């Protein structure tokens, strides 16, 4: 089962409320991160997590859960950006 963790790539961020703007140092790109995605990043920054555990933690935090496919797409997207790594 795939586990994701926060990448070693550095990024800078500003946070306003539940939303963040990230600057990725590996690519020089700037990205807007919505509240749900911000929560995903926070959970994965704490420890490597599987998709099932991630869904459970999002649910415990009161987040309306996207489908598993949408969540997996988000993780793939974050991985492609260099924010997350599979481990």
């Amino acid at each position, binding site marked *: 089962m795939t586990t994701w963790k926060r990448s070693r790539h550095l990024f800078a961020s*500003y946070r306003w409320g539940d939303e963040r703007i990230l600057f990725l140092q590996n690519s020089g790109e700037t990205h807007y991160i919505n509240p749900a995605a911000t929560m995903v990043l926070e959970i994965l920054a704490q420890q490597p997590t599987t998709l099932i555990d991630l869904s459970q933690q999002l649910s415990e935090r009161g987040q309306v859960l996207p489908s598993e496919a949408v969540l997996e797409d988000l993780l793939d997207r974050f991985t492609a950006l260099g924010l997350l790594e599979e481990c």
Partner: protein
Amino acid sequence: MKIAHLRKHALARALHHPHGVTIRTGPFRVQLRVSVQSLVNLIHQLWRDYPLVAEPGIIDCHLAVTRRPIHRRWPKPELRFLVDGQAPFPPFPLAHHFPMLEWGLNLCLARRANHLLMLHAAVVERHGQALLLPAWPGHGKSTLCAALIHSDWRLFSDEFGLVRPADGLLLPLPRPLPLKNASIDVIRAFAPQADLGPAFEGTHKGTVAHVRPPTESVQRMDEPARPRWLVFPRWVADSPLRLEPIVKPDAFLMVATNAFNYDILGQTAFELVGQIVDACDCYTLVYSDLREAMAALNDLTRSANA
């Protein structure tokens, strides 16, 4: 000594000289050679308060405006704008000399001043606090800016929001404001005291007339200011006035995507834009009536100072 201290014939002689004249505008030194008398007259009027630089130092832009030799294939008189002896764009008609000089200098600064973050925004200041008006072309920022600087606000720039990376302060670059088409008469009616140059018809942006930067703004062009308000204006015909707060992430993306050199400065630009958005109250402004827009901006900024 400033340009206005020279008589026109003395300025013309100096601008004809192989070394031209060096002036300072905001943080930049610009060396200029000109061989067209009608352009000299307008420089004397619209750049009148810029200090002449005599002491040696680094020149940011070496510019020249010269007549293109008449050729049977180009029978109409044309002017070339040169930066370091190279023409960055095709010649302009002789009659469009001053717009060409202004656009050329803007282009030169936009390409070279990468030691500063350059936002595409009008900036004005009052009581040490700056109001930034980032906007796309045609959204009415120059019109608003021209009205504000004739209503107690100090001109920083109608085009370049210069941000100094060392401290995040905004630097003035008070330059002539190019009003386009209907906004020329709007400002003539709103601020009869504004010193406008002639209207240049048929440019690629329509009819253009320049407002001289107020003398006090040029005299105080070494005084920076802190950002306090971000207002994104948009002129929409017949629209009721709407001044609405926007969330800071949206403001961040609007400022960053509208900056001249955000991608070049990378993380430095990211951090500076973040600091500005953090420090500012952020709004969008849709307007059709200039006086209503001015009243709304005055209410907004006065209530913050109260």
